[in-house]
């Protein structure tokens, strides 16, 4: 068991999500190995984003358990799960448009530096010091994602490609063990896609486990260590990229099942 925890960051057992009568996820079991990049693919409506929402605590699963480092987290709220070390991005960009680029990343540091309402209101030295640390740490991340020269710009003003990068940067700011990226390449052109996938590889190289939902097969096949395929809320395949690519159930699901 403990060897299992060592090896797996995330483990889902019998996860079921129903919306009214609709079965969005049915009896899903899978593991994410520490330090890997795992991609989740599947046709539209397969339940990929639902799965992300369950893992990150947007809503609890109807049944089943989600374990993070061996600890059940399915009953926890999103902000508690974030504090444990799971961070995420959103399919449709959810930046704080009313803030600057650096402020977005600084907010990402929220779980690492706690300041009380009183301490910040009185501008106590400790809260100022923390604010400075947050700023430095945010700048470091901006350099890493290549947006350091735009730190003062409003997040709204960035082109989509950079907004997607910034969202990843904000998610990194909490120094997560597991980062969940929901379609990081959606809507990006080829150059932007290349930048995004190199960034994901770089994040992984630093030891962060990556869980990825993505439609762009080139990205998925290039960077993933393992792939999980969902269709109608069920796992239809799981394994190495080359195995999944040749799996006939996967081909059926994508091509419309003319078997």
């Amino acid at each position, binding site marked *: 068991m403990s060897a299992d925890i060592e090896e797996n960051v995330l483990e889902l057992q019998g996860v079921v999500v129903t919306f009214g009568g609709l079965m969005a996820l049915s009896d899903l079991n899978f593991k994410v190995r520490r330090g890997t990049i795992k991609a989740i693919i599947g046709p539209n409506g397969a339940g990929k984003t639902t799965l992300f929402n369950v893992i*990150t605590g*947007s809503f609890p699963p109807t049944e089943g358990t989600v374990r993070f480092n061996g600890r059940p987290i399915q009953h926890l*709220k*999103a*902000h508690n799960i*974030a*504090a444990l070390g799971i*961070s*995420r991005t*959103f399919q449709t960009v*959810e*930046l*704080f*448009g*009313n*803030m*600057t680029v*650096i*402020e977005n990343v*600084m*907010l*990402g540091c*929220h*779980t690492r*530096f706690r*300041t009380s*309402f009183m301490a*910040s*209101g*009185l*501008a106590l030295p400790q*809260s100022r010091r*923390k*604010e400075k640390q*947050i700023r430095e740490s945010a700048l470091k991340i901006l350099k890493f994602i290549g947006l350091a020269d735009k730190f*003062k710009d409003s997040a709204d003003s960035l082109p989509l490609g950079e907004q997607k990068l910034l969202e990843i940067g*904000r*998610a990194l*700011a*909490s120094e997560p063990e597991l980062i969940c990226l929901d379609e990081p390449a959606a809507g990006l052109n080829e150059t932007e896609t290349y930048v995004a996938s190199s960034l994901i590889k770089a994040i992984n190289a630093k030891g962060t486990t990556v869980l990825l939902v993505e439609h762009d097969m080139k990205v998925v096949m290039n960077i993933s260590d393992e792939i999980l395929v969902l269709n109608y809320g069920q796992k239809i395949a799981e394994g190495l990229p080359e195995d999944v690519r040749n799996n006939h159930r996967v081909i059926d699901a994508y091509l419309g099942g003319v078997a």
Partner: protein
Amino acid sequence: MLRIAKLPIAIFALFIIVFPWIARQIPAIGNYTDIMVFVGIYCLITIGLSLLMGYAGQISIGHAAFFGIGAYISGVLTAKYGMNAWACMVIGMTVAAVVAALVGAPSLKLKGHYLAMATLAFGIIVFIIFNEEIEWTGGPDGMSGIPGLSIFGFEFDSVERYYYLVWGFVLAAFVFTVNVIQSGTGRALRAIHASEPAASAMGVNVSRFKILVFVYSAVLASLAGSFYAHYLNFINPSTFDLFFSIKLLIMIALGGMHSIWGAIMGTGLITFLSYEWLRYFEEFEIIVYGVILLFVTVLLPDGLAGVPKIVKGWFRRKVSDER
């Protein structure tokens, strides 16, 4: 980085310090220091309310009730039980904080404007209590005999002394709030305003922050109520009715919801309108407020605080036209 410049705060503080002296020199505005005491009292409420509305994006239609809680706790405990006025102030603020947490917690855990509904109902209930608990509050006739404030034998018995006392607290509350806005707490609040799902995914406990700000604004309103009671030495329920809660919202909307300066400007303008400049309108005063609100929403979405930006843009366009 959201920075609120220090220089305007210093200039404003200086203005507040010299204002009574100016008012003394010009007979026509001799009574303005008295009105400025009320501006200060109301500013205490709107500073907190502006943080709640403009930064956390929540609406309260019940702040008159917290104002009333402070006023009545101070009034009843000092006039009827002879308790220390400063201790009563702290008791009032504590009660307001507890009540705000009880009212706010269930409604702020839900998404949407449930706080507006809950505070509307709460405001009406508290207003009824002020009217009906005649034994304590004196009912609709109000209660008198509330003592003035003093500290270590120094009596705040003149308008000017009280003015400096109140404005000292206003400046402290203002600086405290500005610090909060510029800190991680302020950042979390603005994040909540922009996207709750993203804020909570980044570890921000959304409902905790909303409750915290709501409680803070209620505490400031209660403090304002205590100052009000000790200044007038008399209170009656009609001061704390629904219309006053709405008037507070008008002050903030007029000043500019997204700026803490807006709260000060809006409060100043509306208070002078109702205490001095609109006296002749009597009950038609409310129509003027309606017109102001309409005017602001259509022409000045950022309120008075947004005017410099509009003027700057207008000026720039004019310069580039001439070229």
